């Protein structure tokens, strides 16, 4: 059985004395998908570039497919597929030419024409790179990352400028890679993307890991569910509050809208509905919500906007 695809321990990268990555750990098992999720400037791209061998680290241990990527040894790079942020191509090169060049670097590449067709680039196959839309450039960069049949793919914000169809396509592609045993490390600031694609999510901020786990674990951990319903405004909640188990509270955040917080289990639901029945009201819009990954993310990284 093959070892882990990526192992990072205590990674530190400084720019002009400021730590962009500050003691970060990562583990990506072979054949799995890991999403690095974080706000702009969290250190995601820097971390990925260190793993790709494109950037030097100041401290820490990094192993990519069992090899130290520092100095980007030729033998390691041949096993990786890389999608740098913003792509990378000659300004005047045509889509098909660029993909052909990257394919020529691999021993047994995928068919470039098939990839061009698959990624919806057939209509611009002869368009120079600098005249492509950002989304088209991004799809070309994605094609370049997978054309060499790599064991491990790094995707830096693969869907940042794509329309919903393009995003779905990338998701399908990542799922296809995973199904065939390719490990994928992707960065994103889209919660839904991380939740949909990743086996394991690492939330980073200020160059450190602030939380990690499977999407389910992250949204469930320490997070109680909540129950909301609508009914007539200003109902007397004392009776309901006494019927609820220990630790649950009920409030009316806005008139007619009720919120039960705490450990929501079937007893709580039953207490609420039987209380409604006794009051002779129909609980409208009754729903039990789990914390979304977005809630977790905002809670951990703060709500202020960053440039």
């Amino acid at each position, binding site marked *: 059985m093959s070892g882990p695809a990526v192992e990072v321990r205590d990674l530190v990268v400084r720019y002009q004395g400021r730590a962009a990555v500050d003691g970060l750990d990562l583990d990506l098992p072979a054949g799995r998908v890991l999403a690095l999720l974080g706000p702009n400037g969290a250190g995601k791209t820097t971390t990925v570039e260190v793993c*790709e061998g*494109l950037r030097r680290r100041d401290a820490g241990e990094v192993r990519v497919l069992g090899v130290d990527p520092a100095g*980007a040894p*030729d033998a390691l*790079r*041949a*096993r*990786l597929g*890389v999608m*740098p942020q*913003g*792509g*990378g*191509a*000659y*300004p*005047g*090169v045509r889509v098909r*030419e660029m993909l*052909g*060049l*990257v394919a*020529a*670097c*691999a*021993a*047994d*590449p*995928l068919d470039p024409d098939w990839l061009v067709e*698959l990624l919806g680039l057939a209509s611009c196959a002869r368009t120079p*790179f*600098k005249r492509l839309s950002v989304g088209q450039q991004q799809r070309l*960069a994605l094609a*370049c990352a*997978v054309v*060499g*049949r*790599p*064991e491990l793919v790094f995707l830096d914000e693969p869907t940042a400028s794509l329309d919903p169809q393009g995003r*779905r*396509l990338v998701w*399908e*592609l990542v799922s*296809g*890679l995973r*199904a*065939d*045993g*390719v490990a994928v490390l992707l960065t994103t600031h889209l919660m839904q993307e991380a939740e949909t694609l990743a086996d394991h999510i690492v939330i980073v901020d200020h160059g450190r890991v602030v939380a990690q786990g499977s999407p389910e674990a992250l949204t469930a951990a320490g997070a109680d569910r909540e129950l909301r319903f609508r009914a007539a405004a200003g109902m007397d909640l004392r009776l309901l509050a006494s019927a609820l188990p220990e630790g649950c509270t009920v409030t009316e955040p806005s008139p007619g809208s009720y919120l039960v917080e705490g450990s929501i289990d079937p007893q709580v639901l039953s207490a609420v509905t039987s209380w409604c029945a006794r009051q002779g009201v129909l609980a409208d819009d009754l729903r039990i919500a789990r914390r979304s990954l977005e809630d977790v993310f905002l809670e951990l990284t703060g709500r202020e906007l960053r440039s």
Partner: protein
Amino acid sequence: MIPRFDPGTFTPAPGRGPLGRMLATQVSLETRLALRQGEQVLLTLVIPLALLVGLALLRVVPLPEPRVTSVLGTVLALAVMSTAFTSQAISLGFDRRYGVLRRLAATAVPRWLIVLGRLGGMATVVVVLLVVLAGVALLLGWRPDTGSLGWVLLLVLLGTAAFGAAGVLLGGTLRAELVLAVANIVWFVLLFAGGVLVPVAALPGPLAAVVMLLPSGALAEGLRTALLGGTPTLGQVVVLLAWALIAGGIASRTVRWS
């Protein structure tokens, strides 16, 4: 419509392509890119060609006879300078801006092969220019002196190396816009005051002394001498070699990939 993939479509089969195929693909792509770009072709081919035809046929400027042979040395030097220095620096500056070097550095290509591929592309363009300019010169009545052709090829090779190293140094260290401005200004200054269009003998004394130490002066004077049947001076060969080594040495330490 969202495609579904057959199992095994992406099964890993990593490995580096054959070195020869990688090099050939990159050289051919870089050559096509250089010959396809309008401004570059204007600079490297159309201007030298127009000067060759114009100066050979129109007797507006007094030149040693045979006129076409005198002019050929000038336009070969100009073509080498335009291709290896100006055009190379500008394309490198913008290639860095567009991240192509990082892109290639992230593939299985060894770094030395990326550099070799660039040089190969530049050398191929120089060969194409040599063939076109020499062909037109032949049509205009140039009768090559076979004894001098060895010198011509040596000077073109050294000139390409000297200007190429300076071009890589410029294009590999500054911002793209700055590269564009500097490379064009230098081209213009060297064309008129660097011994290319105006022979060193016609320049004022102190300037002439400086120009003899520039790759433009050494290359153009050397080529004119060789084509008219003479032997270039040792100084001209040494100047070109020194520029290639010094600029190349600095470039190998300072050039940034992005």
